[in-house]
């Protein structure tokens, strides 16, 4: 190990690379060295979960060659969305060290609100969706009040909500029990049949790669001016080429059947927006701060109450959005909307994706990765003719194995002292 950091390092000029105890990580070669170093010390980021995914995909493909077919992956992508959107909200709540057990009920309630206003009251669809989102926002506000004003732990407060809003959903749906959303409505079309045209998908891929390259370039230039270390242009080009190739291949493959669903594209867009909010704004910073150490955050003058409030409102609103999307995809709302394992899947997706239940750790992308893992297992098992009993057992086993991989990596990082 000592050969990497030599006692007399080469001359360095960057302010942030001046300490002589640091290994030299600049340039393409340095990046590679740093990367192997990180692997050795167990700091792998999303790598293990992606390896877990690859293993899940390989095994299922071996068991049933339809699994990796373009059509099935296309379905998989769209089926991720509604719970994925909910999981995104759950990530935010977990980040501040709280939990929301009621996302399932809230999604069901918001679906009911949409259906009742849109179908029964004949409101325009945008207004119906807005009403549902507003209901979600109000619910989130209520939770935040319970937490900040009365000090009710969010576990209990949202448990009460879980029951209460399920009741409200049943009440709204009333004696009918189920309401169909018309197939010819925009909402249902968007969720079931709207696919990105092939040419547009390639345009989007190129735009994404370009964006990666140019924002990286701008940042590197800014940092170089400030005499800070910066990624080299060749590295940036390499990275954006990788993005281009990866996304391009994915788009091409999915375009072999019906293409990429707009709903999935919208979901990825939402994840990016939240990534931005969480990493590049003062609000996001305060979210992490409150989750890491609420008392320390309070002492720096952060309005902790406001942070909790915003996060709970966001989470419930996203849950409502997820509920609306689920309803649109199903083209129906019933008493079971949002019931069953929506709750658990949404929270599990966030946790599997790497959000910590103890707050302060996790990323927006956790929702995306986590839900893809869960949906892949579910979709893969659907392709095998298994009895329910085996289906449950296999799901449990696959989940345990997939997450063990990820966790082993994290654990090795912990024993290397980088908690």
């Amino acid at each position, binding site marked *: 190990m000592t050969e990497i950091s030599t006692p007399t390092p080469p001359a360095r000029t960057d302010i942030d690379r001046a300490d002589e105890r640091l290994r030299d990580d600049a340039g393409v070669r340095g990046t590679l060295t740093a990367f192997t170093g990180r692997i050795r010390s167990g700091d792998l980021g999303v790598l293990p979960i992606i390896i877990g995914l690859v293993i899940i995909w390989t095994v299922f493909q071996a068991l*049933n060659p*339809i699994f990796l*077919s373009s*059509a*099935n992956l296309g*379905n998989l992508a769209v*089926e991720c969305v*509604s719970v994925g959107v909910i999981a995104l909200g759950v990530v935010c709540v977990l980040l501040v060290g709280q939990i929301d057990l009621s996302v399932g009920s809230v999604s069901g309630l918001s679906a009911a609100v949409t259906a009742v206003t849109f179908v029964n009251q004949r409101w325009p669809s945008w207004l119906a969706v807005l009403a549902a989102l507003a209901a979600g926002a109000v619910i989130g506000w209520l939770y935040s009040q319970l937490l900040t004003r009365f000090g009710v732990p969010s576990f209990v407060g949202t448990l009460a909500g879980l029951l209460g809003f399920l009741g409200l959903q*049943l009440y709204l749906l009333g004696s009918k*029990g*189920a*309401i*169909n959303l018309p*197939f010819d409505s925009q909402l249902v079309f968007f969720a*079931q049949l709207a696919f990105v045209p092939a040419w547009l998908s390639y345009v989007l891929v190129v735009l994404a790669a370009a964006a990666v390259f140019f924002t990286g370039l701008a940042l590197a230039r800014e940092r170089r001016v400030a005499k800070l270390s910066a990624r080299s242009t060749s590295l940036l080009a390499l990275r954006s080429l990788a993005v281009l190739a990866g996304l391009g291949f994915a788009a091409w493959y999915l375009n072999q059947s019906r293409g990429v669903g707009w709903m999935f594209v919208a979901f990825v867009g939402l994840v990016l927006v939240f990534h931005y909010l969480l990493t590049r704004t003062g609000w996001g910073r305060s979210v992490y701060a409150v989750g890491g150490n609420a008392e320390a955050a309070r002492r720096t003058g952060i309005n902790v109450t406001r942070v909790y409030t915003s996060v709970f409102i966001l989470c419930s609103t996203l849950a409502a959005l997820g509920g609306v999307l*689920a309803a649109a*995809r*199903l*083209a*129906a709302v*019933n*008493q*079971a*909307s949002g*019931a*069953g*394992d929506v709750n658990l899947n949404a929270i599990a997706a966030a946790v599997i994706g790497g959000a910590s239940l103890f707050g302060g750790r996790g990323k927006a992308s956790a929702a995306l990765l986590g839900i893809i893992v869960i949906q892949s297992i*579910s*979709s893969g098992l*659907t*392709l095998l*003719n298994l*009895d*329910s*009993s085996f*289906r449950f057992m296999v799901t449990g086993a696959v989940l345990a194995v997939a997450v063990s991989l990820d966790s082993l990596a994290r654990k090795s990082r912990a024993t290397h002292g980088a908690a």
Partner: protein
Amino acid sequence: TAGSPGATGDAAQAKIAFLMPDIASTRYELADHPLFEAKVKQLCAGCSVIYANANADAAQQQQQANSALAQGAKVIVLDPVDSTAAATIVNTAHAQGATVIAYDRPIPTMPPDYYISFDNEKIGAKIAQSLVDHLKQTGAQGGILEVNGSPTDAAAGLIKKGIHSALDTSGIKLLAEFDTPDWQPAKAQDWVSGQITRFGTQIAGVVAANDGTGGGAIAAFKAAGVNPVPPVTGNDAELAAAQRIVSGDQYNTISKPIKIVAEAAADIAVQFAQGKKPTGATTLFNTPTQLFDPTVVTTGNLKQALVSSNELKAGAICTPQYAAACARAGIA
């Protein structure tokens, strides 16, 4: 040409999806699926059956249907979790040139190609009517408790509707009713326990929407020390319920001729897969329909309805525990 859809070789290799709604009732996995698959294999050796159970989740059922279609299923036999939401599945299947047979529950808003069932509403009506008749016959005093299925289960709603249709006109008082969350027998037990302290001896009988909740109701009476236990209904003709009926703890259950219906469904499905267009006995909800009648089972007809029809084995019912009762009921 090889591989092109519609070739005759394709019909002989057809894939048929059999999509069941939940595991709250044991019958789908234990009876419907094996019976259906066996019959399909018998009718069309090269055909294969894609089986999935949606675990009471309409969205999951939709995914399972999509997956079946992605696997190239020509026919989907669908017992919808939610009759309303199943419209999407019919819609999607038709768009991809597949046929849909509604099984067990109808799909009124988007007619499928065929409907084959016994009717849940009628089940409710029949078990309730059987109890009402029994109470009138024995001249029992008091009212009835109604234990319904899950408030989030559409089938439970149909049964509930049937029960009310029989009770509301019977002149017997409905003391209280309860929608059992998730069909949980323990919840039914807790609720009935409460009603026993509340109404005491006024309870003349209990209409329970399935055998599990019925068993919960019976356990509540036993635990409260009520003897004899008032008549309690059930539904599904589970083995455990048959044993309780033999021992006199439960009043009735209902036997759905699953074998007949499953095999009929298999027959129709294979016909569709081979490009035929079977016609129904009647038309319901704009769908060609074939309906079968469920039979109420009590001590009186248990042997004939369950044992002789091969639905349950006498040996399975008559464990040593129930041997004496079996002998009394005349089951070997």
